[in-house]
């Protein structure tokens, strides 16, 4: 719950957040102070232990690790950091181990398993193309997802509130909705002249289906008494839809938006690998074609950050809008 009230009302059955926070799981006061040194260890391993082969960017990597260490030493003073300290230590040791196993000892088959410095080198030399691909992916995703979501909410409201709309639209939804949108890809590339427009259409379709179903079910479940209350005060349809039905159904609609976002991620990658000649999916495809595995991994990292970032944004919006809910999942 993001909203706080200025007076003491507590629900007995809600667990105070402090009781389940990692701060309590790691009571040690020493741990935050080990995070910085752990990164110095990683920097030390990288810098002083000679590479097994001629890798690029080893020095840069050691410097990056050292900078992490320098930042994290004073961070130990922050109360909020103590919860993240165990993760920071694990991350540093993980990098150090990866560095030792692959860059220094070469224990794993070479082209497929890269080293941390390979990855860093891609980011340093190819960041421009990676950033460009990210922007293209985001653009493609935004248009398709936002169109699909708005359409999905509108159709869901129509299904939930109008019998005539339901009569004509429900059979179509039942026929087309469950079909994996990927199955329509070959068809879409043929009948829609531009591959960009075809991908947008499919992405909108992919994200719309879960949004439609959950909006519909949310609207159908609205307590009819909510409408009666507003109607006795003279509310018209517009108010009933936008100020009663949609807020009441909002918790379900957000579940649909979340699922739709996942569907549109999948559609995005497929579209970029098969049709659209830009974006992270296209970059990955291209990297794989040239056996440039570090580039593929770098694109994967960027894509994963993009996806989790977008989901985080969606959950932030949800937390804002659904602050009135007694409880809610924390992303």
């Amino acid at each position, binding site marked *: 719950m993001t909203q706080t009230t200025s007076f003491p009302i507590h629900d007995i059955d809600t667990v105070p957040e402090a009781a389940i926070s990692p701060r309590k799981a790691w009571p040690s006061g020493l741990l935050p102070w080990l995070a910085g040194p752990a990164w110095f260890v990683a920097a030390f391993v990288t810098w002083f232990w000679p590479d097994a082969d001629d890798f690029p960017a080893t020095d840069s990597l050691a410097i990056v690790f050292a900078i992490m260490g320098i930042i994290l030493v004073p961070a130990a003073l922050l109360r909020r950091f103590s919860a993240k300290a165990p993760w920071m230590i694990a991350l540093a040791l993980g990098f150090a181990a990866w560095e030792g196993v692959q860059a220094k000892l070469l224990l794993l088959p070479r082209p497929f398993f890269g080293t941390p410095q390979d990855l860093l080198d891609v980011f340093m030399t190819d960041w421009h193309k990676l950033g460009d691909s990210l922007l293209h992916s985001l653009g493609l995703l935004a248009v398709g997802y936002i169109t699909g979501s708005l359409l999905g909410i509108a159709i869901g409201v129509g299904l939930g509130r109008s019998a005539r709309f339901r009569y004509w639209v429900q059979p179509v939804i039942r026929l087309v909705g469950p079909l994996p949108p990927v199955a329509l890809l070959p068809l879409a590339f043929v009948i829609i002249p531009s591959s960009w427009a075809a991908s947008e259409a499919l992405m909108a379709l992919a994200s719309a289906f879960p949004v439609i179903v959950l909006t519909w079910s949310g609207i159908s479940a609205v307590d009819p008494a909510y409408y009666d209350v507003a109607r006795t005060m003279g509310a018209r349809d517009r108010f009933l839809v936008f100020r009663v039905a949609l807020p009441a159904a909002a918790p379900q609609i957000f579940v649909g938006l979340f699922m739709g976002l996942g569907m549109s991620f999948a559609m995005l990658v497929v579209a970029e690998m098969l049709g659209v000649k830009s974006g992270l999916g296209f970059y990955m495809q291209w990297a794989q074609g040239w056996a440039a595995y570090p580039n593929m991994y770098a694109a994967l990292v960027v894509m994963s950050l993009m996806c989790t970032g977008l989901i985080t944004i969606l959950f932030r919006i949800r937390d804002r809008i659904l602050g009135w809910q*007694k409880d809610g999942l924390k992303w």
Partner: protein
Amino acid sequence: MVNATMTPLGIQLDNVSHGYDIGGRFTPVLENVNLNIAPGEFIALLGPSGCGKSTLLRLVAGLEAPHAGRILADGAPITGPGPDRIVMFQDPTLYPWRSVRANVALSQDISGRVDNAAVDATIAMVGLQGFERAWPHQLSGGMAQRAALARALVNNPRLLILDEPLGKLDSLTRLTMQTELLRLWQDRGFTVIMVTHDVEEALLLATRVITFSSRPASVVSDINIDLPYHRHRDDPHLLALRRDILVQLGHSADW
């Protein structure tokens, strides 16, 4: 805050009949109900459970149109819901996504005529100051019902329609709310139509008690209660009326 020009509404039911399709069969719920409610009266409706009291209130509120007969408000037929006839339901039905204050201000949001002073004054009147920013799930049952009352009263309705408004409250909260309701009615002078299942509550509050038959409901008795306020529940006259009414509702006289 009080709209000085507010005049209470008079309601007239002429041979009103209504029914529903239940499981494919038409079931009459109200049959030839005739009722004349003068402006400013406090009417209590009593009747067996399921007889059609809530249905009657929905018709007066304009949420549904009667199958037969006419319902007039100040002589004009009721064609739909209107903000001068406010309903308070048995459940508070506060919107969980609105703060207490936003719930009370609902009718103003709908009409677009914002009057913050009236909202604040009404919240204070029902004793919810300090809880304006609370969410409904943070209120106790009695507080939620008072918020619903404030929501109903904020725009100074001419007719207050109450459907077992205190039915779910504990007996102490109930007594307090009864007193508040009476005081509000005396202060403001609106017309009240209240359904209750508590004969004593009806006799303590109403100027007129009307009993209904079981479904399909029609008026069985119509009793004026000519007792001054503040009434006492042990008043022998009131106890006698109580016995009469219970007999009309089908209980034996020696109950």
